[in-house]
């Protein structure tokens, strides 16, 4: 071994060991009250708790459940309710929304929550120096203006109907401007909000612990407890592996865990746990096409494929039955979903009809090898999807069988999400298997308005205006009507073949009480308590 390489290696090692600072845990100077602790599992350490700088799942979970309160929430009645905002008005031209804020609310560092704090948050999002991943969600937002200390106006370049959905996500929650200015780049390690819990300790890679905010006042109408949280501490434990998390649930080291179809049977029937199942899914699993590439440019061909898909079998195989077969191009948990539309315009499983349609389109098996041909071209196509999830593989396998059953050979190509998603833009794409989660009907516009989120949907003089109107119609009932129209048009064209909407399932310790959700699936943390 050449001495020089050894020398460099030693130098590097020594430098590394000498230069490294062990990641100091963050410990805030707040008192730890007596009482119960709720321990929740997250998959990875949040990289930051500054909701302007990240949209990662673990960060959003922690931020949303503890300190970041928003202007509005969407209740189980599917209507928008005031939270930190008391009321609001929409201007005649639909381009301005003015909020009247509640008074007397303070951040946990004593700073007042007011119009300045609201403006401060959105200025940070819009400031390109912050490279905020949230900024793209706010395309129509031009600026936020302070009218008076408790009145703030949002000015948009065009009416923004998706506003109510975005406003209730955790990244629309507010941070104390004093704290942000004090900590600068380090604010993400020392967040301060108005919520029922405040940061106590953050051990990087291990856990984030919050304690009760003793001055908290709950202003949400759907909350049961109007005062400080009943829990003393809210703790997030980082457990990357599902298997390890299930073990920790069984030993009681965590109190709550999300379940999937593999882990649910392990706790079902166990009196130590209650299972909550939310069937109002906002996630849709579906087949997408490159609608600009033959034969997928023909709606009849896409429809034939729609009849070939055995959804019920896929639900059983990929989700263990914990999912609903869907015939609409919209998830059932979204306002605007109408199952009747799916029943009328959708494609229930009918392989005979699929075969008939394909034959009518000129795809016939002339050489008796089980695969159809047309104009010398074999019915052999590629479907792309992403790795890392059992439900994807099981769905793909069933689809292969379904397609073979009607005379189409399906080749599968999987890559991990990042590569897969970027690769969808390629013109070589034929079909892909996709799952999308979003809380508002404008998901249809985002995905299907030409040219489509990956560039494969042709212009459509009838569909595009409807999808555009969904984004700019502020009237609640009108918007629902547009959602219905969009679903009908999308199904008539079979732009996608919807498959299923999987359920959100939680296991919680049986003695936990008042663990309840709003329409968007947000838990109200101040209500939770342990029955003795």
């Amino acid at each position, binding site marked *: *071994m050449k001495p020089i*390489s*050894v020398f*460099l*290696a*030693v130098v*590097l*090692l020594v*430098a*590394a*060991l000498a*230069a*490294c*600072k*062990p*990641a100091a845990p963050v410990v805030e100077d707040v008192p730890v009250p007596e009482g119960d602790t709720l321990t929740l599992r997250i998959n*990875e350490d949040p*990289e*930051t708790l500054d909701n302007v700088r990240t*949209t990662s799942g673990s960060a959003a979970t922690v931020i949303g459940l503890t300190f970041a309160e928003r202007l509005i929430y969407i209740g189980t009645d599917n209507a928008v309710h005031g939270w930190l905002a008391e009321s609001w008005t929409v201007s005649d031209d639909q381009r301005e929304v003015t909020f009247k804020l509640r008074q007397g609310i303070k951040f946990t560092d004593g700073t007042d929550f007011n119009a300045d704090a609201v403006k401060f948050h959105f200025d940070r999002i819009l400031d*390109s*120096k912050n*490279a*905020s*991943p949230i*900024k*793209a*969600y706010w*395309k129509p937002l031009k600026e936020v203006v302070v009218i008076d200390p408790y009145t703030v106006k949002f000015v948009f370049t065009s009416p923004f109907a998706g506003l109510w959905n975005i406003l209730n996500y955790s990244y629309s929650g507010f941070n104390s401007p004093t704290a942000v200015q004090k900590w600068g*780049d380090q604010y993400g390690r020392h967040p301060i909000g108005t919520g029922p819990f405040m940061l106590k300790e953050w051990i990087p*890679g*291990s856990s984030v612990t919050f304690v009760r905010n003793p001055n908290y006042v709950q202003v949400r109408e759907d909350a049961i407890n109007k005062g400080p949280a009943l829990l003393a501490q809210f703790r997030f*434990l*980082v*457990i*990357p*592996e599902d*298997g*390890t998390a299930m*073990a*920790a649930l*069984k*030993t009681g*080291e*965590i109190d709550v865990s999300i379940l999937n179809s593999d882990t649910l049977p392990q706790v079902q029937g166990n009196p130590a746990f209650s299972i909550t199942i939310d069937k109002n899914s906002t996630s849709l699993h579906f087949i997408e096409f490159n609608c600009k590439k033959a034969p997928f440019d023909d709606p009849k061909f896409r429809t034939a494929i729609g009849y070939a898909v055995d959804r019920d079998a896929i639900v059983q195989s990929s989700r263990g039955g914990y999912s609903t077969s869907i015939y609409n191009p919209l998830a059932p948990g979204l306002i605007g979903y109408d199952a009747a539309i799916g029943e009328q315009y959708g494609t229930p499983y009918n392989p005979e009809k699929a075969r008939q349609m394909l034959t009518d389109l000129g795809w016939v098996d002339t050489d008796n090898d089980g695969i159809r041909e047309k104009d010398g071209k074999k019915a052999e196509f590629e479907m792309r999807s992403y790795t890392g999830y059992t439900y994807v593989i099981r769905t793909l396998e069933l689809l292969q069988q379904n397609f073979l059953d009607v005379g189409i050979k399906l080749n599968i190509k999987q890559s*991990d*999400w*990042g*590569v897969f*998603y*970027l690769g969808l833009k390629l013109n070589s794409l034929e079909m892909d298997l996709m799952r999308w989660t*979003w809380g508002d009907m404008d998901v249809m516009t*985002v*995905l299907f308005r030409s040219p489509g*989120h990956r560039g494969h949907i042709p212009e459509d003089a009838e569909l595009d205006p409807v999808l555009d109107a969904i984004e700019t119609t502020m009237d609640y009932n009108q918007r629902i009507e547009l959602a219905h129209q969009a679903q009908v048009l999308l199904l008539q064209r079979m732009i996608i073949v919807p498959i299923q909407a999987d359920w959100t399932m939680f296991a919680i310790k049986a003695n936990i009480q008042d663990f309840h959700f709003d329409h968007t699936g947000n838990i109200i943390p101040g209500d939770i308590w342990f029955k003795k």
Partner: protein
Amino acid sequence: MTFLVKAAIPSDAVGMMFAGQLTETESAEAAAIIRAKFHLDQPPLVQFYYYVSDILHGDLGVSIRTRARVIDEIGYRYINTMKLAFGSLMIGILLGVSMGIISAYYKDSFLDIATMTVSLFGLSLPAFFFGILLILLFCVQLRWLPVIAGGGWKGIVLPAANLGLILSASIARITRSSMLEVLDQDYIRTARAKGLNERLVVFKHALKNALLPVVTIIGLQIGNLLGGAFIIENVFGWHGIGELGVKAIQWRDFTITQGIILISAATYVVINLIVDILYQFIDPRVKLAK
């Protein structure tokens, strides 16, 4: 080398940071800012220049994901991985060498067959599976240890036992065959004939000579140890560079990944050097070429 491999991969890390989260153009402004900050918009040669000059200044760069210094992110985790590696090595050596000596000494007895069967399991069982089994047994069934234990001895016991047991399997086998060979030698017969205490014969004369291949195997297994640590650290939530490495790859955080590869390679080089030096002490006939 590390740098060239990274440059050859066609994935766009910055694009991927926002991919799938943003439904319209991937926040082109955000991406552009990050690209400029990390010199990603420069030609590869320029990037390499920055990279090398930074290393010589002790700067491994900044994590794309968290913006913290790579040195800080990796540093304490590296120490944790070394603790785990050391613990696993101790368990592996103690257990493996003991099993090997016993097997060799009581060759073909029940003890021999038993220990070799156990070692067969150690060789065949995948580390991941074994890890979950350990958790189910010791944490869920017996409740002797918590599932999530943090950094203390409670946290290191199971992962070290996991890796150590697997390591001991190969060490046991090599020790056994090496001991058998040595015990058969003339000088051992001589020592026994001289009336030397049996313990002295085995441990002083036989073992010392048998150790050379064992040390070789240990040196080779260091690589496996570091690699296995990647899996085990994730299963047990042990905060080492393996746990970080998996996440860094998923997040396409290539500055962290580069840093981990560099540190791992450096470690491997240094450990092999130590092994080479050890040879000299075990067998004076081996002289290091200077």
